[in-house]
């Protein structure tokens, strides 16, 4: 097993891994449900606004001026119209996007993949197993395990975690999420979901490229 001189960067690597995981967690929340006051209060904090802006997400004037109630109401309306219905909407499920039907073969495969990695769905989880936010949360958990493995200096576990992420990205997320996001960007009424969708699509493409770059190799320094 060859190891590059990554040791001095150990803390840095752990930090970067955690950051990547956080972004998955953040995006999971964006697509999970109508915005909650707590979540959007976090987003309105200046550092996050700045970072979002830096990543191309322009949340619009409304974010600075409008009252919270009005803002949440408008966002809720856009979320429902985009992802829930009634009428034409863009279902945020893998099987709906790939097979044109809910609870398809892809749903079962996603659930089996996640369970085979030592997770289970909470007993009070009532949505379908292949919701975009579940797939993102799963990535966040896998990255969390990778960070733990890095911290205890367990290169075999790091490799295993990365491989699992790469396979899940390849077999599931990158097969449908970018196209899904493109549809959302086109259909969004407010800049928030338009830009969030673009950000997500870009991030997943970047993730796919990263995974392809590191495939089969040892976890090297970033």
């Amino acid at each position, binding site marked *: 097993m060859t190891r590059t001189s990554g040791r001095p960067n150990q803390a840095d690597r752990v930090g970067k891994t*955690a*950051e990547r*995981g956080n972004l998955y967690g*953040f995006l999971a*929340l964006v697509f999970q449900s109508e915005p909650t006051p707590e979540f959007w209060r976090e987003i309105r904090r200046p550092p996050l606004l700045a970072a979002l802006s830096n990543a191309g997400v322009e949340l619009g004037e409304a974010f600075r001026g409008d009252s919270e109630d009005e803002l949440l109401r408008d966002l809720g309306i856009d979320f429902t119209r985009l992802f829930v219905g009634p009428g034409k909407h863009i279902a945020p499920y893998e099987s709906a996007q790939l097979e044109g039907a809910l609870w398809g073969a892809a749903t079962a495969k996603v659930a089996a993949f996640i369970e085979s990695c030592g997770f289970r769905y909470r007993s009070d989880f009532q949505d379908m197993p292949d919701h975009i936010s579940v797939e993102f949360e799963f990535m966040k*958990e896998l990255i969390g395990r990778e960070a733990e493995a890095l911290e205890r200096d367990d290169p075999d576990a790091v490799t295993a975690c990365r491989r699992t992420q790469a396979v899940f990205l390849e077999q599931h997320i990158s097969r449908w999420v970018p196209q899904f996001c493109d549809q959302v960007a086109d259909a969004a009424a407010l800049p928030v979901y338009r830009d969030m969708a673009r950000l997500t699509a870009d991030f997943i493409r970047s993730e796919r490229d990263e995974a392809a770059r590191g495939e089969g190799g040892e976890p090297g320094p970033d």
Partner: protein
Amino acid sequence: MTTRRDFLKLGAVAAGAAVVTKSALVAADELARGGRDFSPLTGKARQAVPTACWQCVTRCAAVGFVENGRLVKIEGQPNSIRTGGKVCSKGQAGVNQVYDPDRILYPLKRTGARGEGKWQRISWDEALTELAGRLKTLRDDGHPEKFMFHYGRMKASSSKLIKSVFLANYGTGTIGNHTSICEGGKWTAQELTWGGHFDNWDFDKTKFVLNFGSNCLETHTNHIPVAHRLVEAIAGRNVPMVTFDVRLSNTAAKSREWVPIRPAADGAVALAMCNVIMSEDLYRGEGEAYLKYCKFTRDRHATTEQKVAALQRHLAQYTPEWAEQVSGVAADKIRSIAREFATTKPAVVISYRGAVAHYNGNDAERAIQMLAAITGNMDNPGGRCKAVGASWKYPKGPKEKPKSKKLKILDGFKGQAALPTHHMSHHVLKMIKDGSAGRPEIYMWYCYAPVYSNGDVQENIDVLKDESLIPYTVCVSPFYDESAALADLILPDATYLERWDWEDMVSPNGVAEYYIRQPVVPPLGETRDFGDVCCELAERMGFPLGFESKEEFVRLSCEMTPGVKEAGGFEFMKTQGVWHDSEAKPPYYAYKKKVKAEALVKDGVIFDEATGVYWNWTKSKAKSPEEATEKGYAHTKNAYKGYVGQEIGGAVYKGYKPDKVNKSGYLELYSEIMEEKGLPPLPTYVAVPEHELMGDDQLILTTFKVNVHIHSRSANCKWLTEIYHDNPAWINPQTSARIGVRDGDLVRVASEIGDVVTKVNVTPAVVPGVIAISFHCGHWEYGRYASGNKSPTGTDDDPELERKWWRANGVHPNWIIPNSPDPINGQHRWMDTVVRVTAA
């Protein structure tokens, strides 16, 4: 274009937002609870069949997994309150019992001379026609007692069906057991002190464990239920354990401290500890309060002060300095452990064959009971408690049973043991050889290895082989072992994984567990459960039992037994395997409960002033209330069966209900029963006579069991025998230097009855002056995995036969251990044999 760096920067500041997440996923349990299994090849779920183990007497509830009709795996029963889902290596290797390529699959009849090894395959009809004919002739001639039935392991429903129903209706009382080669002496000592056996150790709540000669992490009467609780106590709660043993067993190794001790000296150390506790007033508090329920003097009305004075007087001779001379354990060590035991509350004192299978074992166990009593560690949370098992109801067969007759060959020669309440099975063949108490015409054994399991193997072979001593021998077994080789007829039994039973072994948590054994797979070949065979034999002899099979017996029992019945009876038990009353509580301090007044005025209940016992004379052998009153409780045969309660200081308590002897309801440490037999009433130390006469060139042979074998029924299990198949004798470096041998050398170990040659393992893990040889090994039959010898009906279809890489199969110590009893209770003295060891 957003760069990778921008994404990560966003991730860094999004941490706060990401934690409000309402997640969908949680980490699955690292290990799933048992009860499910999947084929690693096909992913297909295997059929899970709840059943019960039978490798050792613990009989843990278990689950067998079946794939394509074949038993592939055994796991613990996750819903068992006894095991908590655990199972040991022996239990898992039960698979090997079913598929042993040397199994007997059809009835066999001897054709050559007995023991010559020539057999003819016969049908069940031929076998049972011959056997029922012989049995019926004896019965019709008025001599049912000439049919001796001798069992090794027979418990719960098997025991009730075969012994209480079939044999009782046949009319023979010549029924041998094996308890005296097991731990019968411990039971007798308990019967003399607190009534029915046995003691359960409350590891769940204890804070200190004092161990005299128990290897319960490796082997025990209630092995896994006890061992996993002890592990939890030691590893989970840092409970200290101190172990006295002649050998560093794995239990001693897991203790805070192993205290090496000379053989047969446990009683001396226990008495010296009692001396410390009484002379330093460490009994005050719980111990003092408990004295109310104890008998320490002849006068049952003695005050606490009088009891204390009597004890101090008796114990004065047993100083730690005296015990140091006897045991080799330093007096200061005895003092400090006694103080720690007495001042840590609660603490539990445990004991087993290391302390008991000696000439003086009876009183070693009584002294240990005394240690628990004077510190108040009896029947309390965390102490030494009365065991609780399931109470099944079952069909009893025909109402009218013949009066049974028996040959007086079960308890050894007159005067050999004063109170052999669990008989002297190791003397049965000797008694038959002697003939003065009569001989059986048919000797049948079931789940028993009379040749291998008793001492003096050569004599066992000689007697069993001699047709003039026993005209007809019948072996009921799935396997061709050393004893089966001496049968005239072999009835191939189903293994335990192919039969029905209800089970009742005790629960260490004080709540009874009801569980069943059901066939995981159907019996292989033409094998049949002997319970079913008994139903047919009874039918053939004209006394049908009222049920046609063991399955029916178990089904009826499930439908009769309160609790099990309401839970769903037989169908519930078949799917769930185990049941317990979720409302039940452990019966701590049950002896303190007062007896209801109406129970004392019931018909037949009388008061015995001498003992203070209320008892129902109609349950005894007395013919009239006058006779019962005149003879008194202590001297009326079977009076103990009518015990109701014990009067103490004007109130009547449940006390300690007697069993097998007419003990009072006190915890009797002063035993008038022993006194009347001319034995010291209070626990006393006597040296082993042979050890007193030992020369410098002699050693004491001690025996032991290992964690992957049961005594004599697992050497055919390939998974176990692969791990343990050779048993070099352990000797201390001081001993080896004295004899002039080195590690790995061959030595000849000779006793008064013979010698064996074995390798030595020189190790400080055994005390000087002792040679330790394990059981399990040295088979010369029992199939290829055990002995290398193929059985007459062995097949070659086990591909793993080619992978058997080991040749050695060790030596069996019983060739040189004479059958010799503890003179009080008849227990076989496994740990006392004096030997001479020389280079071979």
